[in-house]
């Protein structure tokens, strides 16, 4: 035990003193933030410039309806501005053109071409009757504007037909009032604070963090074993300690580094935990409860132990990172599969697919954790997945330490798979 502690402490101190540890501790949350929150902020930001649109229709009343609706949508009605930013909704200038002749269409096309206007909606009476309008713009990939136009047109048509049937303006407005569905999950018989979308993003965020940390730390174990193998330090160490002590010390040391990093993140994130974040025009609270963070640490440790045992064996068997790469992919496969199945599991956490996947030890760290976040699965399933996981870890450590024991003293050519299998059988 003493030797394991010595190796673990050495590994821990060396890693946390490295610059890369500090960089990763800051960079990873920054990247997560950058990939999720930032794009939606940027998207609404770029709209600072005025966009000029023209609605060409013979019906002035229809044109006004479309314009009014369009100007109130898409986002400004629903999204309060992001705190502390001066982010305004998109700015549009919409004009109505009642001339729907062919010449006028050509003229509008020309205007778009010379950047006089940004786009026009072509809606003459017969097109309206067929419900087939065309929108011509310099960019055809602005889904937000298209969507807003489409719903504005639909509502304007609805108003038009309701007016025809004699409804008053108030009646029409009342009928068209949007419906708000407030989604909350029920947890232990109580209504939880977090809503559906909030849950989705919280789960997404935490799972990606878990995935990245497990992967990162397992691979760092592999590199560290490889480095020690190449520096030929094992011969010295093995005259004082057993390979098992060496491997256990290394893995525990790296696990402690990972936990330190998670603890730092938790502390740093706690002020933001209750704050709302605006993303893709929606607002939600991150659900970073204490229980979620504890489960995060538990599944990190277990997932890390499982994958780092494999990584240590791999690092010991090969001679360079290049050699390690192709095997590395095999080891990472279950993690990647977990990420692929992440969305279906978040959306239907109680489905058979989700249950089965979350019980498979190699996927359990990510997928069982995801299920716990979004649904709180039956206790027996959590227990079963933990038992299976711990059992698998035990077996993998036993197998991998046998490979490790031989691998660290084998230099030169890359071993083949049958050779590695043979190593496991050596006394």
């Amino acid at each position, binding site marked *: 035990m*003493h*030797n394991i502690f*010595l190796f673990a402490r*050495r590994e821990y101190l*060396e890693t946390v003193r490295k610059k890369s540890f500090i960089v990763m501790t800051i960079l990873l949350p920054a990247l997560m933030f950058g990939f999720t929150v930032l794009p939606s902020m940027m998207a609404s930001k770029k709209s600072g410039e005025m966009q000029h649109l023209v609605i060409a229709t013979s019906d002035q009343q229809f044109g006004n309806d479309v314009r009014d609706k369009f100007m109130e949508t898409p986002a400004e009605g629903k999204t309060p501005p992001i705190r502390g930013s001066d982010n305004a909704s998109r700015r549009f200038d919409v004009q109505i053109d009642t001339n729907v002749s062919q010449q006028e269409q050509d003229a509008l096309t020309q205007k778009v071409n010379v950047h006089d206007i940004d786009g026009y909606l072509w809606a003459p009476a017969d097109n309206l009757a067929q419900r087939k309008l065309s929108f011509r713009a310099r960019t055809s990939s602005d889904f937000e504007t298209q969507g807003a136009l489409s719903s504005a047109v639909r509502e304007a048509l609805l108003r038009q037909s309701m007016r025809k049937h004699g409804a008053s303006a108030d009646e029409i407005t009342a009928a068209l009032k949007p419906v708000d569905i407030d989604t909350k999950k029920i947890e232990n018989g109580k209504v939880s604070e977090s809503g559906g979308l909030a849950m989705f993003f919280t789960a997404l965020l935490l799972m990606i963090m878990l995935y990245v940390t497990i992967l990162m730390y397992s691979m760092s174990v592999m590199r560290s074993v490889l480095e*020690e193998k190449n*520096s*030929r*330090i*094992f*011969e*010295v*160490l*093995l*005259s*004082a*300690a*057993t390979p098992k002590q060496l491997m256990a010390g290394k893995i525990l040391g790296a696990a402690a580094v990972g936990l330190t990093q998670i603890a730092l993140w938790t502390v740093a994130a706690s002020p933001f935990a209750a704050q709302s974040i605006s993303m893709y025009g929606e607002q939600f609270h991150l659900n970073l409860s204490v229980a979620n963070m504890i489960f995060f640490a538990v599944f990190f440790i277990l997932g890390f132990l499982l994958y780092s045992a494999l990584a240590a064996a791999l690092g010991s068997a090969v001679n360079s990172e290049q050699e390690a790469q192709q095997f590395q992919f095999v080891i990472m496969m279950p993690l990647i599969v977990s990420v692929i199945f992440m969305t279906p599991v978040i959306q239907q956490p109680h489905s058979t697919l989700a249950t089965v996947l979350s019980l498979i030890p190699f996927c359990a760290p990510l997928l069982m954790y995801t299920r716990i976040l979004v649904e709180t699965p039956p206790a027996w399933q959590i227990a079963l997945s933990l038992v299976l996981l711990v059992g698998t870890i035990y077996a993998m450590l036993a197998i991998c330490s046998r490979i490790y024991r031989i691998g660290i*003293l084998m230099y030169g050519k890359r071993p083949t798979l049958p050779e590695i299998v043979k190593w496991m059988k050596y*006394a």
Partner: protein
Amino acid sequence: MHTVELQQVRKSYDKFIAVNDLSLNIARGSIFGLLGPNGAGKTSTIRMMIGITVPDSGEVRMFGEPFRRDHLKRVGYLPETSGLYKRMKVSEQLILFGQLRGLSATDAAARGKKWCERMEIGSWMDKKTEELSKGMQQKMQFIATLLHDPEFLIMDEPFSGLDPVNATLLKDVLLELNKEGRTILFSTHRMDQVEKLCSSICLINRGEAVLQGTLKEIKGRYGRNNVQIEYEGADDFLHENGLVQSFNNYGNYVEVRMAPGADSQKLLQMVARGSRINKFELVEPSLEDIFIDTVGKTDA
């Protein structure tokens, strides 16, 4: 009593037999040379001796008992290629190695300091290991081997990477430790380095012992039938088949092994006929000669 006894130990990797039924005894307090060309099985033998690998068959005894891991607390092993944590400070690293051998941190620090001063790297103790030169790292590795005051020292190519001054420093320390009663095992292919140090040797080739015994006895077996000649002129005499069995020619200096029963005086006359002689001396064969001779024979 023997410090180490190997009885018929054997280690094979797949079809390759690294060590083939090797037996050897290392007497307590002796300086023992484990000699052989590259790939002869020296490192494999040492690894089995200290439990890094387990022999396929045969027995390893240490300090008079069947090998146990806790014997290693009394053994210091300096491997052929230095293996150190590059980013650790010299002092921290020495403490770690001391602790692995059961010393307390303070004890290890004190001993490390004492040895670093003795080995003339005292001013480097706060530096990172990777900042040290190769020779300094070798000395540091040497210190790490000695920290726990082992009774049995295994030195695998200890002089590689050291300049003559440092090699002498290291040799003096080892001789001093031997005088205090410690057993030392040298493993090397550089015969000239250990010839003057070892009392007994085991010469191995292709995993088998080809020559074993005390140095005196082995040299005696070969007799004084080697001649060192410094000459200027023709070297026709080397091709006198009746007199010369083999030779190692350096141009103006040649080491000749006489044919069995040949008279060295006749050779002297032959040389004098075509060359000017600066030196002509009858000597015992060097270990290197014996080595080349023996290995050459077994390989043939």
